[in-house]
């Protein structure tokens, strides 16, 4: 699963997901892509599930993952009393704003095949997404 190799801090503050994506919002490497329509934290295991779904349904194509889980999400164990401090890192997530391109497919794949592949990936995602083409 994806996670950073080196970090400065083990735990991060939660932050807010505000506005639309101002970067990473166009299909840049492949010909077709899957665009997020809602803000979300997408877990590393979900990104991996999406990748596997895309590779299996578009085996002749090249799949690009456009997001990376940079953020560590902590959790406290159940039945913990108040005041024991911040929990331990539980998983890694990518912070996604509406408009972010999550995955791309390219390499001479037909639009029909790409739609099928991206539809499979979309079912793995916890948010609404849409199929997009590269802008000419």
């Amino acid at each position: 699963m994806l996670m950073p190799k080196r970090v400065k801090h083990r735990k991060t503050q939660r932050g807010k997901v505000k506005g639309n994506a101002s970067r990473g919002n166009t299909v840049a490497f492949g010909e077709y892509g899957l665009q997020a329509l809602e803000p979300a934290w997408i877990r590393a295991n979900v990104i991996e599930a999406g990748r596997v779904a895309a590779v299996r349904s578009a085996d002749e194509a090249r799949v690009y993952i456009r997001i990376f889980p940079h953020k560590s999400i902590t959790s406290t164990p159940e039945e913990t009393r108040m005041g024991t401090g911040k929990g331990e890192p539980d998983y890694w997530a990518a912070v996604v704003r509406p408009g972010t391109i999550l995955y791309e497919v390219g390499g001479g794949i037909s639009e029909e095949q790409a739609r099928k592949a991206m539809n499979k990936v979309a079912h793995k995602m916890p948010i609404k997404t849409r199929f997009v083409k590269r802008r000419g």
Partner: protein
Amino acid sequence: MEFIQIEVQEREERGTAAMNRLRRSGGVPAVLYGLQRRSLSLTIPAKELERFIHSGSHLVELKMGDETRDAILREVQQHPLTDQVLHVDLVRVDKDRRIEDQVPIRYKGTAPGTREGGLFQSLMDHLTVTARPRDLPEEVLLDISQLHVGDAIYVREIELPEPVTCALDDDQLVAHVVAIRGLDAEEEEEVEGEEPVGEPEIVGKEGESAAASGGG
């Protein structure tokens, strides 16, 4: 490529709030520059602009009152989610002078190399060509139905209609089919197996203090 006529108005208003008002009222802000003349701010009716963009042509004849000016579409800014056209850049052109423009490349067919264990990679989606505006092709069609593993298409192999010339280096690679190093079986297995979730290395002050407390 044919010139498409659009009626435009010169625009005095500037700034975000004014442009948002303009977009709400059915206009699109645009800018016209080039040929070493003063740049002009314009307003284009959104419906006319949509018609022009979907026509596939880049060439536009701007009608401003009694005057007409020839221009070429250089850039279209779109909203990432709604695809609404936010702004366009137009460059003045002289009908008789050769210009440099980007023409989209369309790949036709399926490379047989992809069925032989290869991967088709297109390294260019636009070709830079030089020609008089009217001679510019709408697209460059490349047949990839003969590309096997290891085959490639170079700029020198692209056939362009007579007055059009390519502005790129002849040896530049356009597309190729590369062999994939038997990753399918190995990679899938790696994914299926349960991976232990490790922790990343901590660098900087926090990492130093953690190491010191661990050691002491």
